């Protein structure tokens, strides 16, 4: 099977369910989510805060918090040797899973300020990754770390490598984070809102860097964001996520030019206008239901401007295909589907 753009797939998440067992009950942040990432493809996942974007990414790496468990579905990864593994079947701390983390799939996070240990040098934390995934000795690992810091544009890497994270600026830290993620040549990079915590000019530089690294080493990018501007700039294929499922997917052009799902259209309306005015995503009407009580049927029906009545409340709409790669899950398009 190939992805919509004709690329062979490398990561395939199929009908994934994740539950959190907490004192307040069971939260279900991921509900039957399906998505694919092609080799070297850049894919964006967009959705409001709390819709399960991060939880999905953590599930893929099998680093969910203790309270969470994957209660259904498959996460298939194509390994370098061409074989396939269902990551949900591996145990979190197994050697194989640990080889995949960092070795096959790497991840960078939103908060460059807290993502490094404050009491270990940057070099120590970079070398750790190299020593884990390669046969390098300490000296080679250090050389490689310096090289990778240089490649992400950190000046004087041989000096900075012995510095602590608090001696780095936010932007530099995120660069170092990218260096650490890529230092073991992974094939997929999951970037969870990599620029949200940075100021605007630095944001552009970091995005530019990710893009450049991606094309240099043929990496697949799985970019999580709630900023549609970033999506437009960075990816070819978009998944629109609402309460743990994909409600619409398609090429960037499809999504931006002909958004179909009422939720996607609401999201589009919240894009900053030319005048620079920027409304937060939460300007979509109604309250976001929480993961403890996901609405029945189409989970968006509580806030949908095009509610069709009972059917939306009771039936979960299946994805319909529009054109080559555009899919939407909404009753509005039940008959129009081609």
């Amino acid at each position, binding site marked *: 099977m190939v992805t919509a753009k004709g690329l062979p797939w490398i990561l395939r998440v199929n009908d994934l369910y994740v539950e959190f067992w907490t004192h307040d009950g069971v939260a279900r942040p991921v509900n039957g989510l399906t998505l694919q990432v092609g080799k070297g493809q850049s894919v964006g996942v967009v959705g409001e805060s709390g819709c399960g974007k991060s939880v999905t990414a953590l599930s893929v790496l099998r680093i969910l918090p203790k309270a969470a468990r994957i209660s259904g579905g498959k996460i298939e990864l194509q390994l370098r040797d061409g074989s396939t593994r269902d990551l949900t079947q591996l145990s979190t701390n197994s050697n194989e899973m640990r080889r995949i983390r960092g070795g096959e799939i790497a991840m960078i996070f939103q908060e460059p300020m807290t993502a490094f240990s404050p*009491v270990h040098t940057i070099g120590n934390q970079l070398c750790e990754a190299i020593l884990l995934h390669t046969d390098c000795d300490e000296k080679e690992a250090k050389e490689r770390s310096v090289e990778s810091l240089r490649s992400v544009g950190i000046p004087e890497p041989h000096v900075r490598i012995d510095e602590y994270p608090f001696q780095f600026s936010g932007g530099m830290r995120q660069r170092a984070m990218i260096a650490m993620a890529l230092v073991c040549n992974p094939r997929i990079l999951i970037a969870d809102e990599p620029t949200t915590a940075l100021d605007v000019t630095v944001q552009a530089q970091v995005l530019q860097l990710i893009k450049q690294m991606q094309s240099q080493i043929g990496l697949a990018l799985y970019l999580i964001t709630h900023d549609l501007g970033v999506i437009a700039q960075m990816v070819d294929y978009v998944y629109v996520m609402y309460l743990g499922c994909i409600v619409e997917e398609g090429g960037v052009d499809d999504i931006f030019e002909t958004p179909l799902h009422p939720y996607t259209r609401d999201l589009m309306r919240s894009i900053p206008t030319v005048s620079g005015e920027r409304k937060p995503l939460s300007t979509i009407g109604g309250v976001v239901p929480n993961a403890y009580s996901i609405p029945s049927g189409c989970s968006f029906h509580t806030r949908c401007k095009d509610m069709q009545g009972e059917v939306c409340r009771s039936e979960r709409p299946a994805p319909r295909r529009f054109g080559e790669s555009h899919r939407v899950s909404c009753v509005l398009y039940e008959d129009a589907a081609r």
Partner: protein
Amino acid sequence: MARFVFRRLLTLIPTLLVISIISFIVIQLPPGDWLSTYVMQLAQSGTLVDQAELLALERRYAMGQPMHIQYFRWISRVVRGDFGMSFEYGQPVRELIQERLLLTVFISFCSLIFSWVVAFPIGIYSAVKQHSMGDYAATFVGFLGLSTPNFMIALVLMYVAMQHFGLSVGGLFSPEYVRAPWSAARFFDMLKNLWLPVIIVGTSGTATLIRVLRNNLLDELQKQYVVTARAKGVHAVRLTLKYPVRMALIPFVSVAGWQLPELVSGEMITAVVLSLPTTGPLLLSALLAQDMYLAGGFILLLAVLMVIGTLLSDILLALVDPRIRYE
């Protein structure tokens, strides 16, 4: 790091000055100067006071001179190790204190090590296995240790040791070594008797440390850098020890700093109950008898020890937390 230690040493000077002044005030506190008290005591016991000796003493201690001169006389002798005379014992304070102080420091130090060695694994286990039976058990025992006064633990342990194990308790030395001079055999004999006071003095500190470590670690385990390290593929056990435990150690080390005074005062009470030849009982009796040179000397030395302890723990803190040494 060297600069940090140097700066830290500089701040020590005013602290030591204040401590010495306070100790001096303690010495001066009772009405009348100590010399007249001394003469009175001698007179009461029927000893004749030699006028020449009296004069010599008066000159030596700068009696009748302004306060600050007396202070300087006193402190310059203290620096050379002369703490004055104890009238209770009629001996130089230094002779009385020396060995006892060493024992107090030794017991407190052993208690500190004991509480760290016990608290460390239990605290980590409790946090990593939060809400497990082991965690609940550790918390329960910890609270018990925290809320039981030291003397109570001392009495119970003494009872158990004597009644059920037939051990001789009380004191630090077996009868044959009490008056013996220091030797390897005497030292080992002391080690044999040490466990009881060490456990007693260390218990409440251990309970505090377990709770501190557990809570810190629970906080740290939630942090983003833990997720980052997991995402790199670090093994869970190695990860816990390298990152969150290391971070949780930081407040742990700073707790150790203010644990010292607690240990020493805990040691004093315990020493009274167990009749240990350490500083506790002596200080208590010195205070009761208004034996002011003895009491003042004690207070001075204990306070200085405390300051040194805090300094050591600060240096340790800077070693585990780079952010402190770069400030």
